[in-house]
């Protein structure tokens, strides 16, 4: 849609001009409240060159990205099989569901103080809360995905005497995969929110650490750089997951069409 795209570009352009005009040109917004484009740029140079908050941009980005990816992968490895099990076996569902009902209302962010008490301010505590925030959506969506598989498909596989292993890899996982990916996208978003919060509460490196120090130093340019970094990382990882999804669901044209 070229009209949509051109209006989009025009909007972004107008916002950038407004940003420049309000901060630098007319000076309506004081630089102590919101940084001008020049201040933001110099904060970015400061962060990537000399470093800020204990390290340079590369170290902070690497720390945050590594924690999110590891915590997220760990949540997939544990959450998806549990969701498959709960979806497949009524007994497992009946056994595990009440425990879930108790733990689920507690938001992942509320685990941060406990994680710090248990594991300190290092990577382990962050991994724990990221795992926790990503685990719940992956379990629930995998479970729903298995429940939504057409009954005849399951019965056919059963009737043809498919061995258990092949049944899981060739029927359950592919059948549930559109929902699994929906869950993974929610998990990924939750991972970033949790990581930023955990790093804001206490960390040695990471984008959240940059934001925290910038807040204490009253350094608006650096705050904005930190926020942009969070947004770009979140966008990039979501795109990567989307590409993985396209590859994984290539066989399933209906699922892809539903996604648009």
């Amino acid at each position, binding site marked *: 849609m070229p*009209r*949509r795209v051109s*209006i*989009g*570009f025009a*909007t*972004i352009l107008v*916002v950038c001009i407004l940003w420049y005009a309000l901060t630098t040109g007319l000076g309506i917004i004081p630089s102590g*409240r*919101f940084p001008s484009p020049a201040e933001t740029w110099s904060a970015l140079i400061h962060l990537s060159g000399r470093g800020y908050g204990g390290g340079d941009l590369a170290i902070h980005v690497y720390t945050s990205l590594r924690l999110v990816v590891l915590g997220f992968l760990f949540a997939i490895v544990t959450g998806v099989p549990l969701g498959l099990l709960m979806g*497949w076996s*009524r*007994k497992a*569902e*009946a*056994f*595990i*569901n*009440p*425990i879930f009902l*108790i733990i689920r*209302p*507690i*938001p*992942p*962010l*509320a*685990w*941060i*103080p*406990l994680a*710090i*008490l*248990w594991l300190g301010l290092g990577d382990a505590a962050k991994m724990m809360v990221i795992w926790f925030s990503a685990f719940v959506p992956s379990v629930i969506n995998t479970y729903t995905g298995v*429940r939504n598989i057409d*009954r005849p498909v*399951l019965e056919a596989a059963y009737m043809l005497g498919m061995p258990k292993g092949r049944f899981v890899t060739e029927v359950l996982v592919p059948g549930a995969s559109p929902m699994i990916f929906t869950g993974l996208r929610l998990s990924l*978003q939750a991972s*970033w*929110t949790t990581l*930023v*919060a955990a790093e*804001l*509460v206490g960390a040695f490196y990471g984008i*959240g650490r940059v*934001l*925290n120090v*910038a*807040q204490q130093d*009253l350094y*608006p340019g650096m*705050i904005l750089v*930190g*926020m942009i970094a*969070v*947004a*770009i990382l*979140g*966008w990039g990882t*979501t795109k990567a997951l989307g590409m993985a999804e396209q590859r994984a669901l290539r066989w399933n044209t209906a699922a892809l069409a539903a996604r648009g």
Partner: protein
Amino acid sequence: MNKQITFAHSIGLGILGLICFIGLWQGLASSDIVPSVFLPSPLEVYDRFTTLLERRFAGATLPGHLAASFQRFAYGFILAALIGIPLGLLMGWYQVLDEIVSPLFDALRFVAPIAWVPFAALWFGTGIGGPIMIIFAGAFPPCVINAYRGAKFVDPRLIEAANMLGTPSHRVIREVLLPSSVPSIISGLRVSAGLGWQSLVGAELIVASAGVGYMMVQGQANVSTTTVMAGMVAIGLVGLALDSALRLIERIIQRRRGLGQ
């Protein structure tokens, strides 16, 4: 599906699951593997919870902290609904507005609500204004998105019928578009409430001088694991109550319009 099981069987298994969970917790807590400072038993957490109902910790009792948190939550949530729902509806009706706002919205969507904490503190302070802005940042997007969907995906036949019968456009908006977007708006509000409540907890962990999150941070600083866990329980209970209340409203509205069952 795998073998069906009877209702009684499933209740039994559920109770067994809970017993295993609490038994494991109790067992770990009373054994020497984990120091009890770090893993108090369920009973100790319950004791602490009831104590906190009456005794002050970090400046207020638990109900006091909850009231402070809930007040901020209510302001932020209502603000998000008051701005977000009309914006979403207008975006759904006027394509130009949709085309103008969507790129900005998409760009901001990837900023985690919690990442607004430094600016929120800078602009509105850490008392009540800053946390309200964080709740707003968490609760605003679902309000907009669901109101937008509600307005965008109204059955076109309804509008065509109304137009054909010569209904004036302000009546079409009030009597066709608005009622048919209500279910989507309500489910958006439910998502909003959950995200807003969670963002509030995050904001209070980082910058606040009262509220449940603040109480938990103080508990953490004093190595009082029971206080932290009691805070988690309280947060979970309030979150659950909020969700149930909105679910109830959702159901009442559906029943009124004969969409129940």
